[in-house]
């Protein structure tokens, strides 16, 4: 519930005054978090076992990274926008048709790797270099947590968990909450 409220706050208040593309990108990212949170409340954490979760959860790092790139690296705007769209379409296609699992996993790893690194590194480096408020580094922490959550979900889906599925199910709501707190605080302090 707190995760949902924080995500709702970020959509309604936290991203005012930005350009159109970052506003849309952050709205999508936090909107997905909000709706996903509501569905978890309605259906229980077991809903994360669903096949569609991989497709939906990819939206969050991709949109966040797009928003960050658009705000801070003007020369990369168009290439990254194209990357984000193509990457997402590729994930949807590879998850919808029958192809070797290895291929779809590699694609997912590349996409999440790139987006995750942007969300983790960009705020961390900017904060360290003094280009942004130190609090902006919390967005990077959120990026790290989302990466951890993604890994846990991946292990859960593939049935090769490093910890038991029960433990993952217990950890994930807390992880989701911490991640949202980090993002909201990071963007507020930036």
């Amino acid at each position: 519930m707190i995760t949902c409220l924080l995500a709702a706050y970020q959509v309604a208040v936290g991203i005012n005054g930005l350009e159109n593309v970052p506003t849309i990108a952050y709205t999508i990212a936090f909107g997905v978090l909000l709706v996903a949170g509501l569905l978890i409340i309605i259906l229980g954490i077991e809903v994360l076992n669903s096949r569609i979760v991989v497709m939906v959860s990819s939206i969050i790092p991709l949109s966040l990274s797009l928003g960050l790139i658009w705000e801070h690296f003007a020369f990369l705007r168009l290439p990254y926008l194209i990357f984000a769209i193509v990457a997402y379409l590729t994930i949807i296609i590879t998850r919808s048709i029958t192809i070797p699992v290895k291929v779809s996993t590699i694609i997912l790893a590349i996409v999440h790797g790139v987006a995750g690194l942007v969300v983790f590194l960009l705020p961390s480096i900017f904060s360290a270099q003094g280009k942004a408020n130190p609090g902006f580094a919390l967005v990077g922490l959120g990026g790290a947590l989302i990466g951890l959550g993604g890994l846990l979900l991946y292990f859960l889906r593939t049935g090769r968990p490093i910890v038991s599925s029960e433990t993952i199910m217990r950890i994930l709501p807390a992880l989701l909450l911490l991640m949202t707190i980090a993002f909201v605080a990071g963007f507020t302090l930036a």
Partner: protein
Amino acid sequence: MRIVNLIRTKVSSYIPLIKSMQTSLLLSTGLAGYMSAHTHLELNMLFGLVGSLFLAISGSTILNMWYDCDIDTVMNRTHNRPLAMGTVTKQEALWLGVILSLAGVGWALVINRLYCLVVFAGLFFDVIVYTIWLKRRTSWSIVWGGISGGMPILAGRVLAIGQIDLVGLLLMMAVLFWIPTHILTFNMRYFSDYLTARVPTFPSVYGFEATRAIIALSAILAAASIGVAGVMIGVQAGVLRLMAVLSSGLLLLSFATVFRPSEQVNFSLFKYASIYMLASMILLSL
């Protein structure tokens, strides 16, 4: 002491008659309709709105239950309601329903005549047109149930601005179109119950596929009505963004019921639709 205990027992047996969740949701729409005008808040007016709407909605709900007692008795989902169980007699329920309805409409009349007319229309459409006349005859009765469900929000708006305007009608349409996403998913979930009670529903008359398509269509119309109303009210950009996000969730779940139907998706839509309506009402009030 014995009298106090008797009153306490009676009151506690009457409470389930008003379907507190449903009444609260309708009451919240009435409040949202009032707050959407963003006029100067008058506490006595607000108190009158809440009190009169609560009485009228509770009264009509009890009258529904009184009339549908035979249906409740044969349905699994409702057979343990106070009237079906016999813990409250039909005569008691009838009197209670009539008294609360009259009190609600009477209070509304004291506050404002047009407001009273809208409150009365809601009660009339719900009890007479929907419950007594159409519910057992046609699955299309839901339209009239929807119109009566939209009356509290219109009433709230009317009380705030003193007239029926386009925004008020849009808000009413939003509730009207939202209701199928809630009720029709319910009809599918308890399909056999309704069949046993011989209450015609969209799934039993037109089939599940057509019902799912209607749910998706009504979700689009509900989201559009709320969105347009929000723009016309002049809600802030951030609030509009949040409404768009919540509407997207509603639309996605509605489309999921059409293209990937399952009991889980059906249940999610049913629950999400309630949260969506409550959240939208809060946002329109900001």
